[in-house]
């Protein structure tokens, strides 16, 4: 297992380097100049040149890449052109909203998927199964931002139970969590639908395996065999899809934050796009890539912890 971890860490590091190169390459093609944007249209060419120099924009690409990476490693993400302040605290504050939101949505999706997936697989072909599968089709079809808007219409506009958006800050944890509940539901429903379907089909596959018959032949009840033997085997594909879906979840968060006017990473990046604040977008995209790649690393490790064959195959 130690060997496996070492190997996976090496792959992780390599992936992150490639990701940083891709992000840097795409963003540096950008027409438009950060210094110009910061100083506004009235600035003199000399002032722009001076600021460009100060920001290091006149250096060769390789040096700028090296500086950017070194900064990322130190936690120094550079200075925002639009706000004129360091980027790290800006992104840090936005993560305080986005990460809890993503975590809540994921937890919600996983809980629903496990319950509904097991329920449907257990009742394969019967009415309960059909109902769950029908609901997942609807869950897949409804765009998360539309669901968000519908919930705003129902709970904020009509019932006036909650504010239509905004975030009170973590000073009052109860209100902060309350403000994230609707967005988390909007974000989690599609994920729940996907994961329910994966859980169901992985479980059905496991239930058909010979070792389930062995388990029954030992005298285990159907239910005990399902929980003890089928579910662990079904978990690997479910975790894998969960990891792959995380990138989509983050992408969805960008949209949903916009509906609920949450000061998260997504909103920060959208504002930075309209401000032509390249460095913030670059850092944000990189950060998301790091999160996604990191989470998939954890999923790999978790799958290998469950399935000894994966440890073997990697070695």
């Amino acid at each position, binding site marked *: 297992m130690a060997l496996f971890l*070492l*190997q996976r860490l*090496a792959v992780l590091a390599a992936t992150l380097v490639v990701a940083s190169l891709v992000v840097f390459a795409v963003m540096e093609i950008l027409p438009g100049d950060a210094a110009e944007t910061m100083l506004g249209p009235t600035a003199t060419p000399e002032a722009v040149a001076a600021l460009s120099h100060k920001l290091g924009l006149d250096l060769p690409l390789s040096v700028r890449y090296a500086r950017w990476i070194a900064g990322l490693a130190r936690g120094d993400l550079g200075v925002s052109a639009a706000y004129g302040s360091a980027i790290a605290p800006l992104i840090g504050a936005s993560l305080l909203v986005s990460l809890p939101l993503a975590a809540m949505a994921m937890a919600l999706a996983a809980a629903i998927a496990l319950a509904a997936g097991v329920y449907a697989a257990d009742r394969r072909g019967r009415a309960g199964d059909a109902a769950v599968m029908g609901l997942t089709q609807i869950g897949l079809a409804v765009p998360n931002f539309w669901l968000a808007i519908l919930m705003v219409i129902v709970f904020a506009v009509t019932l006036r139970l909650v504010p239509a958006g905004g975030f009170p800050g973590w000073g009052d944890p109860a209100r902060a969590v309350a403000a994230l509940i609707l967005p988390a539901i909007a974000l989690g429903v599609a994920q729940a639908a996907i994961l329910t379907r994966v859980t169901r089909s992985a479980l059905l596959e496991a239930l058909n395996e010979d070792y389930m018959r062995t388990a029954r032949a030992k005298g285990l009840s159907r239910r005990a065999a399902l929980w003890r033997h089928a579910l662990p085997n079904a978990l690997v594909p479910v975790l894998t899809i969960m990891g792959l879906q995380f990138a989509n979840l983050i992408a969805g968060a960008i949209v949903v934050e916009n509906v609920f006017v949450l000061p998260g990473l997504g909103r920060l990046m959208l504002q930075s796009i309209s401000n032509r604040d390249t460095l913030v977008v670059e850092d944000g995209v990189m950060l998301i890539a790091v999160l996604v790649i990191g989470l998939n690393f954890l999923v790999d490790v978790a799958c290998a912890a469950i399935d000894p064959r994966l440890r073997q*195959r990697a*070695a």
Partner: protein
Amino acid sequence: MSAAPLLDVADVHKAYRLPRPRPFAAHGFKPALSGVSFAVIAGRSFGVVGESGSGKSTLARIALALDRPDAGAVRLEGRSLFDLGRRDLRAQRAHMQMIFQDPFGSLDPRMRVERIIAEPLAAQGGVSRAERRARVAAQLQAVGLRPGDAQNYPHEFSGGQRQRIAIARALITRPKLVIADEPVSALDVSVQAQALNLMTDLMRDAGVTFLLISHDLAVVAHICETTAVMFRGKIVEAGPTAALFASPAHPYTRELVDATPRLDRAPKAAAPLSAPPAPASGRGCPYAPRCPQARPRCGEDAPALTEAGEGRRVACWFPLG
């Protein structure tokens, strides 16, 4: 005999690369064939028996030039297959065809029987539509199916019928050599006999020579004049089939013969493995760790396949009398 043998397999070696044991470590290699040599004479079908992992399926793939050996040569009527260009190799394929084990996997489910059987002709090219159709119809009849079956899909046939279709495909180019890898082991007992009789007829009437690969002694003994017994990538014994199985010279052949279930006598129970097999030193006889007759020399030094009279060859320091 001056003419070149139909198929000549000369000192073939093949090892498969294993995944690296550690990152950046060298790959390990798992030998599948180490120094296999034999010749198939036209008109005398040749059998290869051995357990799973003995390398017999690798041998089939190399004999058909589907896989390249690491060393050694395969000659079809004197022409070395691995020295031929693509075009020449393709032309040679008309003379050797293959039958597979699984009658469900070896026929493309989305093709009609006519196209399946005609595929070797399509690969050769230069056959008109009408002639192709006529030859498929003739071939279907030769294997006991109706010409009208050509327009159906494989799933409309039973396992035994599918194996007949596979045989028809192998015979459409009128090959001299047909390599059959476990051709009947997926068939029900009551259907096996039909396929075996068909193979016997083809040997007699169509001049086909089989290289038959099987784990089942009875099947090999039924079809093949000469047989080689393989163990861990090596031929341990070869010779006329009847003599080989009546009086095995190699202890492994003896174990195989004794272990084969028969109706006419109770099985001779093999000694259960009570002690863990001694780790092979890598130098000695591969069978030594399992061999009831093993002596110290067997663990030190691998015996070569040597002539033992009456057309028999055996690789054992202390062959059975």
